[in-house]
């Protein structure tokens, strides 16, 4: 007797293994397949034969285990010969039901509902083509969200100044924002600082002069009102109604040095101020109070995206670097004329101002303070004041170190951004898959109900394709729900920690995550982008994707319906 080849031995072992788990009433059939193995021509054909047979036996073993144990008949005891195999149908329907129930359980968790809400944000851009990015600072939309409207209404009813200020600081409609903040300050004058928060984001506000005047009275040492004035002058000159297009124009074209005396006066006053407070700390505390008080579920309303503008009016903050350079140049001119004290005063004012700006100074005025200290060191060195020269040289080194540290911090921030970006991608993708699979499942169920013309389970006979599609869709819903939950959960924790303890660590990550989560999947925009024109492209892109998907689905359906089938008549 010749020894069996390896594939044939494997085939035999495979079928024997399947026989060992097969239900009793299929053993004859399994042994039949095993005996036929001796007659199959070709080793690989024998292996394929064994795979098929083992699959059949394994399927019956699984069904037997799931349903009625070893006594389960291998086939339905009654009904028509060509009815669908009932146990298989039941298995699939049970699996679909289990997936749907598990997915619904996800929805019972508030964190998941929040995650689902975040995943839907990408559709806002796709469905609202005309939206302009960041018209008013925070994550607000051009149209106010229902959540914000609810808050505004409640705060007005309660005459809650902090609630009104909270809504005003993030309302997308400037007129409404102004109305709410006026009401808030009237109720509680200690909230006057909210004027600055709103004015820093838009320079086309009514009552602008009164607001600045009140801000100067409220916090006379602060440079922020002067920045706001400089911003307003810039905006009026450029002739744009909003800051960002003007800023964009400034960046793209490179503006000439500002020569408007009013602007020069405002910037000089800002440089001479004793402090710079953008009120971001107060704003965060206000946010926290309002979030707790009004149980705000919408994370987009909970977090202000202040990561890049740092609470400063962006245009004048950008121009402060230009103004600082002009001050350094005027110091140089004084130095050339022999006015050493005048030059020292100019350089010192720049150094003091950048120090006052803190981290924002490193961001908006890169290397300006280092330049000022170097000039001071050089000036004192020429004046034979070595002690002072060494002192300012050391400060220049310190400024250099601070600059490098800030760059490292920005790199680290950027790396953190990659994680947030990836998580936002997962949230958007799982949100899309969830919607698609849910729609497919509803479609399958509706189709079966319409064809069966009954709501009784026993009278419904879904075809194999319907069952396969339904099972795939249910699994898709469950899997995408799990991914959505897991991807969003860390950010929910960050938000809850901020609300509970006021801990701001991770808020910037959350802001970046939310910024990315708003961008439609597939769009190449980055958070805070000002490139409004691409919004239409985003819409058309997604419209094409959806249209192609629908077309493909209809084609598959059509092919299935028209595949060759034999019809037979039985009595």
């Amino acid at each position, binding site marked *: 007797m010749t020894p069996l080849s390896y594939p044939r031995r494997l085939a035999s072992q495979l079928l024997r293994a399947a026989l060992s788990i097969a239900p009793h009433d299929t053993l004859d*059939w399994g042994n039949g397949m095993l005996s036929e193995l001796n007659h199959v021509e070709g080793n690989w054909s024998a292996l394929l034969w064994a795979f098929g047979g083992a699959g059949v036996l394994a399927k019956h073993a699984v069904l037997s285990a799931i349903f009625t144990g070893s006594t389960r008949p291998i*086939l339905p005891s009654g009904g028509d010969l060509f009815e669908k195999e009932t146990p298989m149908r039941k298995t699939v329907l049970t699996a679909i039901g289990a997936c749907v129930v598990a997915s619904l359980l996800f929805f019972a968790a508030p964190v998941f509902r929040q995650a689902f809400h975040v995943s839907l944000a990408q559709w806002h851009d796709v469905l609202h083509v005309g939206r302009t990015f960041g018209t008013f600072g925070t994550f607000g939309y051009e149209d106010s969200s229902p959540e914000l409207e609810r808050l505004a209404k409640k705060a007005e009813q309660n005459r809650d100044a902090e609630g009104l200020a909270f809504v005003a600081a993030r309302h997308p409609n400037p007129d409404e924002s102004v109305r709410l903040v006026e009401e808030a300050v009237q109720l509680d004058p200690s909230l006057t600082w909210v004027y600055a928060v709103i004015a820093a984001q838009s320079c086309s506000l009514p009552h602008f002069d009164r607001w600045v005047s009140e801000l100067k009275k409220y916090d006379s040492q602060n440079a922020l009102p002067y920045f706001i004035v400089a911003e307003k002058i810039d905006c009026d000159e450029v002739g744009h109604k909003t800051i960002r297009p003007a800023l964009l124009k400034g960046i793209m074209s490179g503006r000439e040095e500002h020569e408007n005396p009013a602007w020069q006066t405002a910037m000089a006053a800002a440089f001479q101020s004793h402090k710079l407070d953008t009120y971001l700390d107060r704003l965060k505390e206000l946010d926290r109070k309002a979030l707790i008080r009004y149980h705000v579920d919408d994370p987009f309303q909970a977090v202000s995206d202040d990561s890049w503008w740092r609470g400063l009016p962006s245009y004048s903050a950008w121009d402060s670097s230009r103004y600082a350079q002009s001050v350094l140049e005027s110091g140089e001119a004084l130095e050339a004329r022999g006015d050493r004290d005048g030059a020292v005063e100019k350089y010192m004012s720049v150094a003091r101002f950048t120090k006052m700006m803190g981290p924002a100074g490193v961001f908006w005025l890169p290397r300006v303070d280092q330049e000022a200290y170097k000039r001071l060191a050089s000036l004192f060195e020429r004046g034979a004041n070595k002690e002072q020269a060494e002192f300012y040289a050391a400060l220049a080194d310190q400024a250099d170190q601070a600059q490098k540290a800030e760059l490292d911090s920005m790199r680290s921030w950027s790396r953190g951004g990659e994680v947030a970006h990836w998580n936002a991608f997962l949230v958007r993708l799982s949100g899309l898959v969830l919607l698609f699979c849910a729609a497919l499942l509803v479609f399958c169920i509706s189709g079966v109900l319409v064809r069966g013309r009954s709501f009784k389970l026993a009278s419904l006979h879904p075809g194999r394709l319907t069952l396969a599609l339904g099972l795939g869709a249910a699994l898709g819903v469950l899997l995408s729900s799990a991914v959505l939950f897991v991807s969003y959960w860390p950010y929910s924790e960050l938000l809850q920690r901020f609300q509970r303890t006021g801990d701001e660590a991770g808020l910037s990550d959350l802001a970046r995550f939310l910024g990315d989560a708003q961008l439609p999947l597939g769009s190449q925009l980055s958070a805070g982008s000002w490139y409004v024109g691409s919004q239409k492209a985003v819409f058309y892109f997604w419209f094409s994707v959806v249209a192609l998907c629908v077309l493909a689905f209809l084609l598959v359906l059509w092919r299935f319906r028209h595949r060759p089938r034999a019809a037979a008549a*039985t009595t």
Partner: protein
Amino acid sequence: MKTPRLSPQTLRVLERFIERPTAWRYGYDLSRETGLKSGTLYPILMRLAKHQLLETKWVTTEDGVPPRHTYRLTPNGAAFVRSLAPTRSAAKIRRAAISEAKA
């Protein structure tokens, strides 16, 4: 009168059986003749047997070779397949007519 949907694979198997209604057939031979893999063929055979349209028997062929499982139509099975024949023929004729019209 009920018109259940028959899968083309089941019809193919029944066609093979009806060619020689009284003959006992081996599983592998049926697989080769119908072109169906074991994973498709055996569930069909099992279903037909369950509905008593098919009977099974173990036969010994030669010494040293394990007995083989064989199958043939029961009288009920043969009658059932014959009852399918007119419809099947009608379908074939209809398809041929459509092909002709298209040509």
